[in-house]
């Protein structure tokens, strides 16, 4: 069996050598350690002794040739190794092909890599590293910078990355929270998610990729709906006195150019009622283990726009008069429709009203805006039979629905709050007692 001897590194890091002269020829019998060749390296001229005994079968390099370390230079037929199984091949016999197909070389140096390759790995693609839990929001530096530029407080942005990390998309979404149609951040369950994909049998399907605003809105809704335990209480109200007051007010000079809507009244009623039930103007802070009670009311007004739902906030609504609120509501709705909502108006709400009555429905079960503990849904105002002064007459009737985060607001508080709002709408004069 022919045994191959490859050129070793004879001097600590040498990479090649020149064959100076062969001391043996094919057919010669050699003994172990017999000098077979003289080589010249960068450092010295060196004689190489044979590692094998046997008969030289082939020389692989000519005198004068420069050979890389690890290249076979001579083959010697070793009669002993031909005996079947008698001599186990020692691990790493120099010059012989190893299992990887490379010539095994030992100490000193391996072959100069002419083909540069990467060793194949077992596992799948490297997993995205998850962030450890942290008390403050986590985000990459460029995302933080973006948030800063957009004036967004990372604490108000739900993080969709692994471990709750806030991504660039999360921030962009928080800056432009455009939803889709009737699906709102303070949405109604069972809404248009059913949508246009459902078609009768026999027709084709239309597929829309889920991305951007819809994805963001969906994430926010899911986050809220499945984090805060929602409880909804309902109350039907005779708002005829409110409507009559409205008629009187709009005739006054002060209200002449003001669009005074039931929504404005509801907003005022909510702010007053919140004084008596502060829990509805609070937030469950899971990260710090605290409930945050706000001294101010930043009232979110859900507004449907051509691009979808927007919930701009009226800042410090509790300090506004009815007139101021009416103006604010009107301006916010207008700017939202025109896509002009200022960024500062998009942030930091503490409680929300959604006026679903404009869509013609009586009531619903609104979903909280993430981070808030209460949302009031104002239904359509209809002429309905009502018991008034002992008789059944047609009155202006409206259904109110209040969803609360049951971790923050209990049933008694929710009811108290809703009753207070209803009282102010059905008997506006009661406002003098708040």
């Amino acid at each position, binding site marked *: 069996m022919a045994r191959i001897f490859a050129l070793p590194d004879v001097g*600590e890091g040498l990479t*090649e050598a020149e064959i100076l002269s062969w001391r043996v020829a094919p057919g010669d019998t050699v003994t172990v350690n017999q000098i077979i060749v003289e080589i010249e390296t960068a450092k010295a001229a060196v004689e190489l002794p044979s590692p094998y005994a046997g008969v030289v079968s082939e020389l692989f390099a000519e005198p004068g040739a420069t050979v890389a370390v690890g290249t076979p230079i001579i083959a010697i037929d070793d009669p002993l190794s031909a005996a079947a199984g008698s001599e186990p091949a020692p691990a790493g016999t120099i010059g012989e092909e190893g299992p990887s197909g490379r010539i095994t070389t030992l100490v000193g140096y391996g072959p100069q890599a002419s083909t540069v390759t990467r060793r194949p790995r077992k596992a799948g693609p490297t997993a*995205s590293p998850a962030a450890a839990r942290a008390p403050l929001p986590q985000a*990459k530096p460029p995302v933080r910078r973006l948030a800063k530029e957009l004036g967004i407080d990372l604490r108000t942005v739900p993080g969709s990355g692994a471990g709750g990390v806030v991504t660039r998309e999360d921030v962009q979404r928080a800056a432009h929270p455009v939803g889709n149609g009737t699906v709102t951040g303070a949405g109604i369950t069972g809404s248009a998610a059913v949508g246009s994909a459902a078609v009768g049998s026999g027709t084709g399907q239309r597929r829309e990729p889920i991305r951007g605003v819809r994805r963001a809105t969906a994430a926010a809704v899911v986050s809220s709906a499945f984090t805060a335990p929602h409880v909804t209480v309902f109350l039907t109200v005779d708002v005829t006195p409110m409507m009559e007051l409205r008629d009187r007010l709009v005739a006054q000079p002060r209200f002449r150019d003001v669009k005074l809507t039931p929504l404005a009244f509801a907003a005022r009623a909510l702010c007053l009622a919140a004084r008596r039930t502060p829990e509805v103007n609070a937030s469950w802070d899971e990260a710090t283990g605290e409930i945050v009670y706000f001294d101010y009311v930043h009232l979110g007004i859900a507004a449907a726009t051509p691009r979808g739902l927007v919930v701009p906030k009226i800042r410090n609504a509790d300090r506004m008069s009815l007139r101021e609120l009416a103006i604010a509501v009107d301006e916010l709705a207008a700017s939202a429709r025109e896509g002009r909502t200022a960024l500062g108006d998009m942030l930091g709400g503490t409680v929300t009203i959604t006026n679903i009555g404009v869509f013609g429905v009586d009531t619903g079960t609104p979903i909280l805006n993430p981070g808030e503990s209460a949302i009031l849904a104002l239904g359509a105002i209809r002429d309905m039979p009502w018991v008034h002064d002992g008789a059944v007459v047609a009155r202006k009737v409206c259904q109110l629905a209040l969803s609360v985060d049951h971790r923050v607001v209990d049933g008694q508080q929710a009811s108290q709050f809703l009753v207070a709002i209803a009282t102010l709408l059905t008997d506006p004069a009661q406002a003098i007692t708040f």
Partner: protein
Amino acid sequence: MAATAAPQTITLAKGLNQGLRAAMEADPKVIVMGEDVGRLGGVFRVTDGLQKDFGERRVFDTPLGESGIIGTAVGLAVRGYRPVCEIQFDAFVFPAFDQIVSQLAKMHYRSQGRLRMPVVVRIPHGGGIGAVEHHSESPESYFAHTPGLKVLACANPVDAYWMIQQAIACDDPVIFFEPKRRYWDKAPLDLATAPPPLFSSRVLRTGTTATVVAYGPMVRTVLDAATVAEQDGQTLEVIDLRTLSPLDLAPVFDSVRRTGRLICVSEAPGEVSLSSEVAARVSQECFYSLEAPVLRVTGFDTPYPPAKCEEDYVPDLDRVLDAVDRALAY
């Protein structure tokens, strides 16, 4: 130095040899001293032929004592010579550490500039040559950490040729690291091409996927990794630091601002390494650009292992690309 017409292909060791020769021709005050540098021409033949051409007065073999080599070089520098000292192998510098840190580094500061130390201490560093203990170390950090010294690491034959001359011409004490496993690497040397400034890093390969910074023997490893990465559609931007003290990181900052990801590769043990220093500075200067944390691929925090383990110890192409993968996963 004579400019030749056609670029000649030289090894890194030969590049140093020719650079030393040119420096000695240019300035009669340049002397070469060390163990076995004269008659033998150096154990890596870097000073081959210099004693024959310049005489024993300028190229001489010293007694076996590294502290003696550096200490007497300090004295010779005071006398007006420009000594180029050879430390035969990396780990043999430690007997001289006192003279380097206490004297060579501080003389200029102590004398407020009256005494200059235009001394070059040449040290072959790094492993990968199948050697016994103490012949494969990477002690750059000890010297980069010492104010008063300048520290260089050449990575290829062309840089070797120019940088040794520039280092000798520099009036500050220079610790000049030579990648011993690359002594036999070859490259064409075109003398018509002017060299870059000495204390500058250099972009060797442009790319957009990630920035990879290395020096000394790791530069070739990283270039090989970039070649392989390109087959997978990734383009690595490779930067050779060249100067370890003072660091020239402006090109690195510029690169990271474009790629958002940085991998630092160095052979020395990772703790308190040059890679750590670069990572800290980049984190500071490029904070808003980082899409992933700066990753370091380094030797382990263990003594350099027996030679049969060194392929596991020294960062190789696979470990560099593994780090690139991890950076991209963020």
